Every structure is written in C-alpha cells, then in structure tokens.
C-alpha cells in the first residue's frame, strides 16, 4: 500500500485541491447568481414631522440603492398587477397608509416582505431590505423624539431616549480567566477543527479493511499467518502502518477543510490564518491520529469476529456514522455541559474525548485536555488488545469475501 505513490498522492492532494475549490467556487458563483427583487410602493405619499421629511419614495430609493449595490436586479412597480406572472426572489410592498402611520404617535407602519421558497438569494435580499428598514425606522424614531421634545420644551438626547441601556460585554474562560474576542474566535475555530475530524475515520477504516480483508482476498494472508510472526505484532503492525497512511489522508482532509473556510474569509478581508496558532495545529494533528487509532480499535474486533466481508462492512459503516455524529454535534453542543445521563454514554467513545481534549486546549485547560487524551488512548489501546485476544486464524481463513 505504501509503495503506491500515486494512491498516496491522490489521497493527500485531492482534499487540498477539492475543498478550497468548493469554498472559492461557491463564493464566486454566489456573486454571479443574480437575484430579482420586486418593490411596490402602494402608499406613494410623504409628510413632514417638524422639519423632517418622511416619504415612502425615500424609503424605496434607499432599499433599491442597497439592493443594486449588491448586484440584485430590482424592478419597481406602482401596483401588484404591473408585475403579474413575473419571477422574483423577494417582493417588498410598502403598504398604503405607510407614511400616515409612521408619522402617527399611536399607530405603526407596515411593509410586507414575501420570500420565494427555496431561493438562496431571497435570504440575502431579505437581510439587505431588513437593514434598510431598521435604519429608516431608527430615523423616524429620532425625528419623533425631537418633535416631542420640541413640543414639551425639554432638552433631549435622542440616544438617551431611544437606547437608554448600553451593554458592556466582557469575556471569561471556563477556568475563570479573562478572555479576549480573539480567544472567543479561537474557540469557534476549535469547533471547526474538531468537526474536520469527520473526514478522518472513513479513509483509516477503509485502509485497515484493505489491509486485512483485502489481503485475505488477494490470497496473501494465509501464508503469512503460518509464519512465526506473533499475532500481536501482525495486528499492531497493520494498525501502525494503516494509521500512518490514515494520518496523511486525515491531515490533508483537515487542511482542505481549513482552506475551505480560510480562502473565502480572506476574500472578505478576514485573516482566519492569524488565529490558527501552533498549539491548535499540533492538537489537531494529535486529534487526527487518536481518532484514526480509535476508529481502527473500534473496527478491528468487529472485523475479526465478523463471519463475512459484508457484515464487517456494515460494522465499519456504523462506526463511521457514530464518529460523524459526534464530530458534527460538537459544532453546536458542549458535551461536558450536558446532563450526566446524556453525557456519560458519549464518554464511552474515544471520539468524544478527542473533541473535549481540543476544546480544553483552546480554552486553556491543559490538565483536563491531558486527562481526556489519556482516556481516549487507554480506550483505544484496550480495544486493540481485545482485538489481539479475539484474533482467530480460522475465522480469517474461512471468512466469506
């Protein structure tokens, strides 16, 4: 397997090309995917509040300008009937009575937004329109405040009336140490890094299957089994060589995933790479290797005891699925904070300890990280030893392929 340089190159280079390409192409194509927005001004009126003008046409112009600046095609109409049967991603209707209600002190004004189901651009357009509406709403609040202040003869700061409470945000790590926004961002990045382990299990399980079942199929295994190689050395040798190839594939996959996030971020002017510190990279490599070992340790006993290639494949698939679930939920869930009844079943699996280890390193708790690293290693080692004990030449020889 190691001799096959082409295979090695493919498994290591392909993710490095494909994943960043996915990120960049989706970003690029998104920019060139044109959305259509229809705006209907049913109100077509204006009013003065004090010296300030409130106008439905003003609001419409602001929305149109903002949408066009983001490459949307905007069609403006006076009546719904003008745009019958025309496709749109988003429709904005400034309802009749908008200005009258907006300048009133007892009513609220309405703008209706209709999104087309399944349209990606509808969400983008909606966000832009909502921003413009929020800005115009704030403008109306300010002029209303000034108007009322003028009438009452009070000296008023609009900010004091409209935003009387300001929030000052501070951050602290779970260990009780003051944390910076950079550290908070790194903790998000750690989730992505842990999630990237999702790509590690499949190649490593495929390689160990090839190493044992494949060798049996290629009719080279039986002769080796009759040699003086101890079963422990035979199995652990296979695990070691497989895990090293898996490590190359796993690291490539992970770098590919990181590039998937980094390149688009660079396009938006955010340098995510600056947050990828050496400790995060090192802990990721450790995480990749332990995840590979764990996968091999979990799949080996099943493969050895399986009566056929198919049942061994079914078990492999189940283990890949379990690993994927854990690496995926770590994007959204802090496993250590779950209720004990839910948390401890997760801790049976070495994958959970890998995820928690990465989290602890990023959050500045190296002792806890070391504990989880040790548990993951101990679980994997115990399973590997169990595999050696379970190994049966007869089962392998008579395995149905």
């Amino acid at each position: 397997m190691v001799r096959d340089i082409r295979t090695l190159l493919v498994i290591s280079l392909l993710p490095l090309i494909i994943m960043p390409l996915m990120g960049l192409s989706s970003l690029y194509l998104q920019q060139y995917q044109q959305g259509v927005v229809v705006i209907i001004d049913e109100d077509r009126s204006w009013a003065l509040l004090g010296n300030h003008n409130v106008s439905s046409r003003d609001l419409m112009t602001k929305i149109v300008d903002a949408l066009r600046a983001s490459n949307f095609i905007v069609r403006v109409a006076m009546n719904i009937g003008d745009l019958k049967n025309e496709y749109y991603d988003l429709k904005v209707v400034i309802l009749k009575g908008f200005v009258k209600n907006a300048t009133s002190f007892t009513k609220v004004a309405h703008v209706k937004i209709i999104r087309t189901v399944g349209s990606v651009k509808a969400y983008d357009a909606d966000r832009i329109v909502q921003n413009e509406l929020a800005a115009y709403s704030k403008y109306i609040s300010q002029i209303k405040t000034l108007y009322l202040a003028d009438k009452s003869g009070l000296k008023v700061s609009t900010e004091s009336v409209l935003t009387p409470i300001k929030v000052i945000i501070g951050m602290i790590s779970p260990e009780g140490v003051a944390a910076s926004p950079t550290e908070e961002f790194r903790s998000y990045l750690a989730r992505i890094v842990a999630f990237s382990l999702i790509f590690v299990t499949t190649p490593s399980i495929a390689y160990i299957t090839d190493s044992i079942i494949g060798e049996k199929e290629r009719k080279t295994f039986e002769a080796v089994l009759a040699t003086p190689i101890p079963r422990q050395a035979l199995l652990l040798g296979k695990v070691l060589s497989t895990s090293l190839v898996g490590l190359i594939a796993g690291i490539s996959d992970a770098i590919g995933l990181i590039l998937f996030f980094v390149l688009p971020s660079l396009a938006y002017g955010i340098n995510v790479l600056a947050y990828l510190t050496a400790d995060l990279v090192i802990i990721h490599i450790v995480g990749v290797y332990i995840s590979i070992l764990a996968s091999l340790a979990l799949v080996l006993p099943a493969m050895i005891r399986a009566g056929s290639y198919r049942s061994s494949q079914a078990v492999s698939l189940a283990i890949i699925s379990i690993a994927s679930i854990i690496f995926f939920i770590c994007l959204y869930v802090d496993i250590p904070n779950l209720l004990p009844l839910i948390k401890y079943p997760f801790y049976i699996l070495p994958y959970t300890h890998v995820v928690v280890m990465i989290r602890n390193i990023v959050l500045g708790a190296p002792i806890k990280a070391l504990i989880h690293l040790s548990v993951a290693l101990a679980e994997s080692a115990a399973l590997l030893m169990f595999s050696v004990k379970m190994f049966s030449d007869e089962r392998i020889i008579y395995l149905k392929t």
Partner: protein
Amino acid sequence: MRYAVELYNVKKKFGKIAALKGITLKVHEGEVFGLIGPNGAGKTTTLRIIATLVKHDEGYVNVLGYELPKDKEKVRKFISYLPEEASLYHRLTGWENLLYFAMIYAENKDQAHKLAELGAKIAGLSSDALKRRASEYSKGMARRIAVARTLMSRSKLVILDEPTSGLDVFSAVRIREMIKNFAKSLKTTIIISSHNMLEVQYLCDRIALIHEGRIVATDTPENLVKYTNSANLEEAFIKLVGDYHE
C-alpha cells in the same frame, strides 16, 4: 523412528459438515509425504491443522515434537506453508516478495538477504525477471516464487498444498523439479497435497490416500500399486476408495 508429524483420530467439523472424520497418519522425519485425494476429501483442512491455522475438534496432533494447538507458536518457528492458490504481493517485485518472507524468518538483514538469494536460486528466475513486479508475472513464474519462498526458509517441515494446481505442463514439471532437488539437498520433511497421482508418485517417498475425511491407505506408491493389484496409482486409488465409499 522419529515422526515429524503425528495425527491420531483427528476430527473437524464446520457447522454440521464433518470435514475430517478421524484422520490418523504419521510422517517420518526427512521424507516427502504425499496426501492425495479428490476435491473436498479433507486434504487442505488436514494441512491447515498441521500448519497451526485450524484447530481440530477431537484427536491428537503432534508436529515436530510439539502438541497442537497448545504449542502452535513454537511450531510456527519450524514450519513453512504454501496454501493452495497462494498469491504474491503484486506491487512488489519477485525479489522483494522473497526478501519480505526472508525477513520474517531471518534474525538480521544479512541473513535475510542470504535466504532471499537462496530463494532466487530455487526459483531459477533470471535477475531481470526478479526485478519485475509480481503483477507482470505469468501464473507459472508467480508459483515458482511462491514455492521458492516456502522452501528457502530451511524450515524443518515444509507444507505444500497443491503446489502445481492450475499450472500448464511445463510449469508443473519445473515446480516438481524444484521440490525434488530441494528435498534431496536439504533432507527436510515435506508434506505435499495433490490430486495428481503422477505427481505424488514422482515426488513422494510415501503417500496417504484420503477420501471423505478419512485416510484410506498409507504406504509407498509402489506398495499401494502392488497390494491392490493395480496397473497404476490412479487405479489403486479407485479400488481402495470403492471400499470406503459411503
């Protein structure tokens, strides 16, 4: 007389199917012993038990003075085994295939190279051919390397399961010559299975006829032909099997 292999009333079942129904045989040290019988007679199962790969259900098995399955790790140090249809590592060259197995038996690199060189000599392939990947070999060339890697380890007991099965006449003759020359020069005990009567007659000092999981007869090929009043071994086998057919 010391025995290299001793089997007494060995039985083996796979599920409900009885593969061996009580095999008893003794192989003398230094002899070439043939196990002959039709497909499904129990030859491969018997050889796998002797090669420590399959555990028997009942009976007694002693190989080179060690009892199986108890002492299988010890036995493995002194035997080499060529399974039926054994293949080479296709991505390795012929030389690398020999070296790979040599490294298992040798204590150091130098010894491994010497064993592989012996293997190359036994195989009789040119140095150019040895440099080619095994995937480019004909079936005959691949089998010559496979047999050579089994013989080169200088094990006390060599087990060959159908070494010429599926080969053309020329390749089969070549392999038989390799085995014959090796047996003469190193005086190793060899157990060889086959359903080719001519082959065992040519190679073996003694043979055991196996049929439906039982040994029908054990003797020299000449005696078996003589005592059954047959023209050849094939006829002798049919006469003997007829008596045992269930």
